[in-house]
C-alpha cells in the first residue's frame, strides 16, 4: 500500500533547498541560482521496504533569513520538516538552534531533520570543529552537487514517516 506524506524544506535563502530536491528527484544539479518565489511542489515515490512505498509530496519553500516570517499556511498538515543550512556560510547557521526552536513551535510534534549542505565546499575536519564551536548538531551533511548523502537523508525521512503512521 502506498501512503502520501507532505514534507516541507526550510532554511535561509540560497542554502541549496531546491538543489537538494532536484538531486533527489531528478538526480541532476545546476550551478545556476534561480531563487524560489513562493512555493514549488514536487513528488517522489520512495520504496521504504520490499512491499511498502511512500509518496513524498515535497514543498520547497522560498528561503528566508527570518524563520519567524515563514507563512504558517504552508506548514499546515505537514508530516515532516527538513531544515537546511549552508556549511560554507556561517550566517546561515550562527543562530541555528534558535531557528530550530521557532520551527519546532511552528510545526509541533513533527519530525525534523537538520541538514548542513554544500559540504563539498569545505574541509571536513575544519567543518566539524566549526560546528562543535557553534554547538550545532546536524543529522546529515550533504552535497547537492556531488549527491553525497542526499538520497540517504530523504529515504531516512520517508522510512521514519512510514513507521510513524
Amino acid at each position, binding site marked *: 500500500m502506498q501512503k502520501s506524506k507532505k514534507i516541507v524544506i526550510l532554511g535561509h535563502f540560497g542554502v541549496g533547498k531546491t538543489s537538494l530536491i532536484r538531486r533527489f528527484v531528478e538526480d541532476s544539479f545546476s550551478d545556476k541560482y534561480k531563487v524560489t518565489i513562493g512555493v514549488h511542489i514536487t513528488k517522489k515515490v520512495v520504496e521504504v521496504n520490499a512491499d511498502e512505498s511512500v509518496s513524498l509530496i515535497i514543498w520547497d519553500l522560498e528561503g528566508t533569513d527570518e524563520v519567524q516570517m515563514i507563512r504558517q499556511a504552508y506548514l499546515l498538515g*505537514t508530516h515532516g520538516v527538513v531544515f537546511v543550512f549552508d556549511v560554507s556560510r556561517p550566517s546561515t547557521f550562527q543562530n541555528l538552534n534558535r531557528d530550530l526552536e521557532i520551527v519546532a513551535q511552528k510545526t509541533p510534534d513533527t519530525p525534523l531533520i537538520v541538514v548542513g549542505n554544500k559540504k563539498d565546499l569545505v574541509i571536513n575536519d575544519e567543518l566539524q570543529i566549526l560546528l562543535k564551536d557553534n554547538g550545532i548538531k546536524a543529522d546529515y551533511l550533504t552535497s547537492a552537487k556531488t549527491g553525497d548523502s542526499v538520497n540517504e537523508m530523504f529515504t531516512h525521512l520517508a522510512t521514519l514517516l512510514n513507521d510513524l503512521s
Partner: protein
Amino acid sequence: MSEKDRLEILKDILFTEDREDIDKIADRIELLEQTYNNREKFASRVNPIVERQIDDFAKNIPNTLGPVITETLKREIHNHKDEVVDALYPILGKMVKKYVAQEIKVLSEKIDNQLSFISAWKRRLRSFFGGSKEKELLLNDLSSEKVEQVLLIERDSGLLKAGYSKTETIDEEMISGMLTAIKSFVEDAFNQKNQELELIEYELYNIHIQSFVNYYVAVVISGSYSLKTKDKVQDIIFDFYHNFMEMNLDLIYTSRHLEHPADTISTKLIEKKLAEYFGNAKI
C-alpha cells in the same frame, strides 16, 4: 701656505670621490626635473605603467567585485519581489496579449477548416431557423463547459484523497499540492477570516473550489464559466458531499484520533463515486 689653504688641499684629497658622486646626482636630478617638466616625456615614461595597472584591475573585476554585485542583486530582487513583478508585468502582459492574439488566429483557422461543406449544412439549417451565424454556432460548440477533472483534497496538508480525471493530466498529487499552496497563500495574504478562495482562472480552464471542514473539492472546468455553470457545479459538489462524504465524516474524524487510523473509505470507492457524480454531469 696658510692654514686655510692646507685644509682645502686636504679636503680635495679626501673627498674627490664624493664630489664626483654629488655632481652625478645633481646631473640626474636636473634630468629628472627636465623630464618632469616636459609633459610628453613624462607621460611616455608613466603611461605604460598606469595602463598595465588599469588592465590588471579590469581583468580582476569579475573576481573581486563579481560575487559582491551578484549577491547584492540577488538580495535586492529577493527583498523587492513586488517591485520586480511590477517591472516585469507590462512586458509579460504584452507577451500574453501576443500569445492570445496568435491563439485566436489559430482557432479561427481551425474553425474555417471545419466549415467543410458536409458538416456545415446542419449548422446552416440551424442558423437559418435560429438566425445565428455559423461561426458563432461552432464557437458555442467549442466553448460549452465540461468537467475535466475533480479532486478531493485534504485541506491542511493538500494531500490528494481521491481524484477523477477525463484525460491524462500532470500528476494529480502535485496539482493538489499546488492548488492548496495557492489557496493557502491567497487566504493567508488577504487575512480575511472565513473567506475562502472560490475560483482560479487558468488559461482556458476555471478551477472551482468548494471547501468543507477537513476536505475541499476542486473541479476543473473547460469552456466558458458562467454563473449558471457555477450554480450547477456547486449543486453537484454538495450532492456528492452530502450523499457520500458526510455520512463517512464521523468515521473519518474518529479514526484520525485512533492510534492506527483506519482508512475508512477506500480511495477506490470515492473515485468511483466521483466519476458517477461528475463524469456525465450536464453543467
